[in-house]
């Protein structure tokens, strides 16, 4: 039995989640209580010592993230719930933290609970929350880190150490500036969507490049970029013009 609380300030959403838990997960989940304000929720965490907290992003005029900041340590599993807060969703994706979109579908809840039961070690949890809070706090929406799941768990990367990403079917190779690489089970397109606003550019069907690592561009029919690790990345014919425009507009010091 997972000792669980819900912190949610909208009654219907609360009712919906309670109903789903009672209907489908009576055996797995012990619901200790439901709390509809920031303060009550905070207090409940310290007194009831839950193993699992469902936490709404929006709590009156504060946020679920504010609540995390108040905590000295996080020794429980967190599942965020949100309706449509793109900035929050981006942050979750970067930190690889579970979240549920309202209205919550039974099968999604099931998946989230299965993950909780499979258990994640505490150190991993902490570092993920740290990435999450950093990405939420940075005022200019510049997320500096991302969590990359791979075969043996996950790694936290600073965007500034990622040189380029290369598609390998459904996998993506992430090349780092210490000459190592990680293979991630997400597609290049997912990374493209995530990194588009952070000085990464899709120069080719198989390549996403951190523009701060571009050393030079070689023109001609099969034009290619040389990156600072001396790797060469082909630029597809159709991406050339938009790449040039992008580089000019993002103030790189490359002279073409």
């Amino acid at each position, binding site marked *: 039995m997972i000792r669980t609380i819900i912190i949610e300030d909208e*009654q219907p959403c609360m009712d919906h989640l309670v109903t789903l838990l009672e209907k489908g997960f009576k055996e797995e989940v012990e619901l200790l209580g439901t709390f509809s304000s920031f303060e009550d929720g905070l207090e409940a965490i310290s007194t009831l010592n839950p193993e699992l907290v469902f936490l709404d992003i929006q709590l009156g*005029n504060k946020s679920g993230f504010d609540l995390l900041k108040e905590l000295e340590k996080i020794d429980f599993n967190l599942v965020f719930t949100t309706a449509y807060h793109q*900035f929050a969703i981006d942050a979750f994706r970067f930190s690889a933290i579970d979240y549920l*979109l309202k209205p919550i579908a039974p099968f999604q809840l099931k998946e989230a609970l299965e993950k909780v039961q499979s258990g994640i070690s505490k150190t991993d949890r902490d570092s993920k929350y740290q990435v999450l809070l950093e990405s939420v706090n940075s005022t200019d*929406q510049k997320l500096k880190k991302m969590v990359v799941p791979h075969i043996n768990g996950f790694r936290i990367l600073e965007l500034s150490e990622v040189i380029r990403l290369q598609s390998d079917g459904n996998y993506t190779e992430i090349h780092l500036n210490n000459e190592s690489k990680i293979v991630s089970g997400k597609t290049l397109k997912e990374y493209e969507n995530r990194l588009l606003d952070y000085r990464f550019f899709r120069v*080719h069907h198989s390549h996403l490049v951190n523009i701060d690592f571009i050393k030079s561009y070689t*023109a001609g029919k099969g034009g290619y970029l040389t990156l600072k690790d001396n790797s060469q990345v082909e630029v597809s014919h159709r991406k050339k013009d938009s790449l040039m425009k992008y580089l000019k507009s993002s103030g790189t010091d490359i*002279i073409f």
Partner: protein
Amino acid sequence: MRKLKSAQFIFFWIMALCLISFSAIAKQSVTDSLRNELTKNKAKDTVRVKLLINLSNSVVWNDVEEALELAEQAYEISEEIAYQKGKAFSLRQIGVSYYIGSDFLRAMEYTQLALKESTTLDDIGFQSSLHNNLGNIYTDLKRYDEALAAYNDYIENSRKSANENGIVVGLVNRALIYSETEQLDAAIKDFEQALELSESNDFTYFTAVILNNIGQTYKSFGQYEKAEPYLKKAISKAQEDNQLTKSSALGNLAIVYHSRGKYDSALVLAEHSLELAKENGSLERQKEAWNVLNLVYDSLNNSEESLKAYRAYISLRDSILGEENKSELTRKELEYKMELKDALSQEEIKRQTLIRNISIIGSIGVILIMGILFTLNKKKRDALESKREADFKLKTAENELRLLRAQLNPHFIFNSINSVTDYILKNDTDDAVVFLTSFSQLMRLTLEYSVKENIYLEDDLKWISLYLDVESNRLRNKLTYSIEVDPSIDSSAILVPPMMLQPFVENSIWHGIAPKDGSGTILIKVFPEKDLLVFQLDDDGVGLKENTKKSLKKEHKSYGIELITSRIEVMNSLSEKKAQISITDKKEGVRVTIKLPLHLAF
């Protein structure tokens, strides 16, 4: 009238100025002999590189595509044999070819590349010719300040290396900018200086061009008295090999005479000007000549001839306009992008609020069903939320919003809410939950996609099938559908404007299949056709004839279709390839075909 520009492009390893001075036949023979040389010399060496560049130079005015290909070949060989000079010169030639093909941005890019390569060459003449070329490109983009700076560089470098020829070209080009920006005194000063140099060096060709340019400049400022002597001198100086200048000067003088009421003399000059222009084959010149003739005939009250001349002028103008338009477009595009940046932040806030409002409608509806009143408080948070989200990088507002409204039209939202109500009344809550889940996913994706100009085809098709799932659910599974993508299409590498199909699919469902007895099928096929991407939508519903009778519901659906039609019009105004829509009635049901330019992402 910056004919001197072409002069500059010729400075190369063969004699300068060949291009301007040759009549078509002579040029042909140069081209042929170069081609012969090339077939003889198959070795990948410096000789071949030079031949390729020279051939490119000699065909560039007739066949830009070929010129480009030749110059690129020259570059590839130079790279292979590490021939630095060849690399630089072929890059310049690629730039020139793009310039003549009116692709000014690429022209600039390659000229800059040539400049970069030239730093290792220690060839001041070559390097400074690139500055002149850059000046020409900037002039065509109407970026006069930058053009001036480039010409100044060129003049200075030519002076340093005592390149008299270059000084003359630079001065004349600079004068033409002054003339276009209405600085008469500065223009005349440069012209006079160039004229003096040109005469003392016996550059007969240049001398005639400059005289005509001075006359034309005075003429354009309305100073006909001053213009006349220069034009007359230009006509006498222009040799057999310089008919363009002669034709131009004759036309200019015709206008001077015309302004004094000497219509008969003006007519003689104008006709002569046209004759020379025809001999030379320059469309631009012929256009101008017809324009002068139209003016003269009009003053002579010969309306028939005047109309004939005007028609000839217009048809030539339209065939040439393409080029002028292109540079105008490039300039507009640059300006527009600058303005866009400023406007974005303001539009952003407006846009956000509107998106919020639309989603408020949706969510209010859904929550109503759950029996909750949910008002001011929610709005307050949305305000907070939108502030926080205002940093988002999104694009222009107006179109997206219209699109968004169309896609998320209230009919769709409220009909969906009705469906949920219906489920609940029938006590089928599990179904209601499933429906609501996919409905909210659809809303989310709609909000995400509707702010994008293009999305990957695979995402667009996923969206359409989710939309069809939701609608088919509402129709109690009276509807089946399938989406077939031609195997030759890689939907992860093709871009399409988002949700183009939606209004048509909606039509098929609610005006084709819903009124029909029994169930119906929608089949969507996606396949390529030359350089177009075709969406073909077939339904087996009641067809057009049937549903126009029942056109009570027509208002909102035709709005959606109207919107797509106007999007297609906008697309067509921006691209050579033509998008099109056709809607036809079949024996059973309707077929809609949408053809879009095939837009490959990579």
